[in-house]
């Protein structure tokens, strides 16, 4: 018995050591989720930490109690611990342990609901937000900048300190847009426009990847978010406008074909490409998906230069 107890203790120490090592190494930047560079990721990290602490306050004592009880009441000749085979009810104790989890859920539930509502608003209200339309394709990411008129593939340049509203859709199987260091993900779905606020406060290049399985090329469905200060961002826009080719409809049809590719930049893209894609992929059947916008649903190939989604972002900005 002693040997077994010993072995269990060794295992336990091992587990704690591994856990500690993981926590410590969490400080290294490789742990993207634990090293957010923007307010959204930070809020989510706060909730991760709060829930971890709360839940550890419950389970660590429970586990300690488990080891104590198993040790104390083990079936061994000469064990002097009390043995009461009929002791099976105690109102006070039961009220306590119905109560503890209820309190924990109440605290964590409140924090969760607060953060849930906070994250649908722009993280910063006194800065004019940037809108980026995102189309997930097999197996690449297309970024459209309706206000700048440029487009990119597999990398997304954003200014630091500016809230970015990502408008998400898919022109391929459902995917999920995830940039761990900026904050959590949102699904991209054909025929639907989804919204996700993110913001980078530190310049840098951040890893992004499709997070929902999309078939054979999924493992290579990677992109970068490049955060630079606002002047550099504007320089970049100008540079792309001057040097890159235009994305034509034929070019988009080419992009849509399943393939894996590097990055690309375009000085322009067909106007309304995002909305037309959503509409054609089924947005026309989704009540409220596009109709809640002044001007109503877009016509196929409409020549509206100011994208409706960017107007929406501006409205959100003004109303808040």
């Amino acid at each position, binding site marked *: 018995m002693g040997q077994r107890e010993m072995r269990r203790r060794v295992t336990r120490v091992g587990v704690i050591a591994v856990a500690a090592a993981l926590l410590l190494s969490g400080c290294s930047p490789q742990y993207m989720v634990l090293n957010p560079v923007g307010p959204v990721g930070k809020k*989510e990290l706060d909730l991760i930490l709060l829930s971890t602490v709360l839940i550890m306050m419950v389970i660590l004592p429970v586990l300690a109690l488990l080891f104590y*009880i198993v040790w104390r009441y083990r079936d061994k000749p000469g064990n002097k611990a009390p043995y009461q085979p009929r002791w099976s009810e105690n109102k006070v104790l039961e009220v306590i342990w119905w109560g503890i989890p209820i309190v924990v859920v109440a605290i964590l539930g409140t924090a969760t609901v607060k953060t849930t509502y906070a994250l649908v608003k722009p993280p910063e209200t006194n800065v004019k937000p940037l809108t980026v339309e995102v189309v997930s394709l097999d197996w690449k990411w297309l970024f459209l900048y309706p206000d700048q008129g440029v487009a990119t593939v597999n990398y997304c340049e954003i200014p630091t300190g500016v809230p970015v509203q990502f408008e998400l859709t898919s022109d391929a199987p459902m995917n999920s847009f995830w940039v761990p260091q900026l904050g959590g993900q949102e699904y991209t779905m054909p025929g639907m426009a989804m919204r996700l606020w993110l913001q980078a406060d530190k310049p840098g290049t951040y890893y992004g990847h499709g997070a929902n399985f999309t078939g054979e090329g999924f493992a290579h469905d990677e992109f970068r978010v490049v955060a630079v200060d606002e002047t550099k961002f504007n320089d970049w826009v100008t540079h792309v406008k001057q040097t890159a080719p235009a994305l034509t409809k034929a070019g988009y049809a080419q992009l849509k074909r399943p393939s894996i590719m590097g990055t690309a930049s375009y000085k322009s893209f067909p106007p309304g490409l995002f909305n037309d894609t959503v509409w054609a992929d*089924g947005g026309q059947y989704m009540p409220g998906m596009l109709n809640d916008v002044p001007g109503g649903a877009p016509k196929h190939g409409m020549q509206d230069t100011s994208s409706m989604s960017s107007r929406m972002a501006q409205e959100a900005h003004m109303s808040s």
Partner: protein
Amino acid sequence: MWEAIRQFGDTYLMWKEGPLIWASDVLILLTIAGIVAVLTYFKKWKWLWDEWLTTVDHKKIGIMYLICALLMFFRGGVDALLMRTQLALPNNHFLDAEHYDQIFTTHGTIMILFMAMPFIFALFNIAVPLQIGARDVAFPYLNAISFWLFFFGALLFNISFVFGGSPDAGWTSYPPLTELGFDKGPGENYYLVSLLISGIGTIGTGINFIATILKMRAPGMTMMKMPLFSWAVLASSIVILTVFPALNVALALLLIDRLFGAHFFTIQAGGNPMMFINLFWVWGHPEVYIVVLVAFGVYSEVVATFSRKEIFGYKSMVASLMAITIVGDLTWVHHFFTMGAGPDVNSFFAVSTMAVGIPTGVKMFNWLFTMYRGRIRLTLPMLWTLAFIVCFAFAGATGVMLAAAPADYQYHNSYFLVAHFHQALIGGVVFGMLAGMYYWWPKMFGFKLDERLGRWAFWLFNLGFYVCFVPQYALGFMGMQRRMYTYPAVFGWGPLNFISTVGAYIMGLGFLFIVAQVLYSIKYGERDVTGDIWDGRTLEWSLPSPVPHYNFAVIPYVTHRDMWWELKEQGRTQELRPRPEDIRPIHMPNNSGRPFLLGVCFFVAGLGFVFAWWLLAVLGLLGVGACLLARSFETHDEHDVPAEEIRRYEAQLGRL
């Protein structure tokens, strides 16, 4: 002619795919040849048919479920090791994307539907009628149908690997990836059809055990005197009945989309793929409770037996089972918080998900305090139960963390999630099933599984578990997505993945020890001569092991919750021995080959649907109809076991 054969070989047998397929073909042929040879050599065909294929005895059906579950555990485990081998190093090319995708799909589907489900049904069948003092389940014929539908569903799913190709869109099978536009092959059809067939059987089992528990308890056994395992089975069966229809509807609609060009889930034509995802998880999340509630039932039996103490807070235990049953049905949206349902919906489901933690926490405390002031024997079932408490505490903790919707935006689809649900399903369900298997094994087979080999299996499997999955939590924080067949070296995911793979192999070694343990114990295991090898508490331990086919020669009158233990305490065990004058002829259901044939017909029809071979599909369905028709004209489906025969048999067992 040769051309036709070659084309058949390339299209259906996939001979161009390489050594993985060839090796599987050879293994399958050798296995079949081996089985046929052994059965023929030992002249066991008739025995197989009379004793097993046509049986309606719940104990034998339970054993068949158990064998299938262990075989599928092996298959799913091999899938897991193939995946972990591929992921051990960055930029590895042990498997290509296509095979990896098929393997993670079959791993998930098999482990949930063809391993966990038959494992819980094995325990349903083995323990419930004995615990509640019944001679069989309420509908023995339906019970056999349920088994054979499961069996042929599983068979259909498994042959896909070497005949036409396995599904490769994940066990969750989300459209539009699974619609014709993106996935033409027969693999996805295999998934839909085989799950539909076994799903019908599962609903039958749910109905069967609700009826059995509500209507077939021995006189005197009120609901509040019923053993907690039977309560857990009732809870699980209620969840089956409420959610499995949702899965079957979702699968059927998607199949109609694929086979007949409907558009239930194709948004380009006005369908809604999010509806599939909702229906899938309306089943998928409660499915976790379907399996884990049964494991909770096992733990309640094991903890009380091996602490030699009444279960603490029986009423709380029942209340928490029922609370999980109800609240568990309201917690599916946390599987897609990131689908944009909005903060109202996400808030509701975040809190409801956390709320499931409340009754679960209560059960934890009650198990702890059952041991408190008891006398704890560290037998194999008890070891697995203790390991469960540790493992599941962390699974619950990470579950509550995942329930916090905004935090879930960061965990979702990452290895953190993968680690969490493996901890819940292995730590919660697999540990529970193994505990249950060790606990009731002597009751099924009349001998105990060897402790020494079992301890090796236990320590290896547990050690392997943590080595495998703790690094995966970290990988989630490092931004690694699930379902990537390979990954680059630059993110530093390599070392942790390597450790994780080592852990998976240690678990595999643990499983081999279980196999060795079973084989060794068949010959050398301690024989159970008393029928009460664990000093048990409930009615099944008052019977000899293995139990006679009619279970109870005389149905007992139940006066206490822990009836058998109570009588042992009071020295009144003789009261559960049959008295010759009380023995009456027993009404038993007849064996029938029809449930087996019905399964074959479903299999044939299923194969027809998979490949859109309509003649085969129609033939299969006609066979199904014929079986149903034949059953409805059957008038003599029961027989009497004469009292004299029972007396003779009981005397032989030394009980008269």
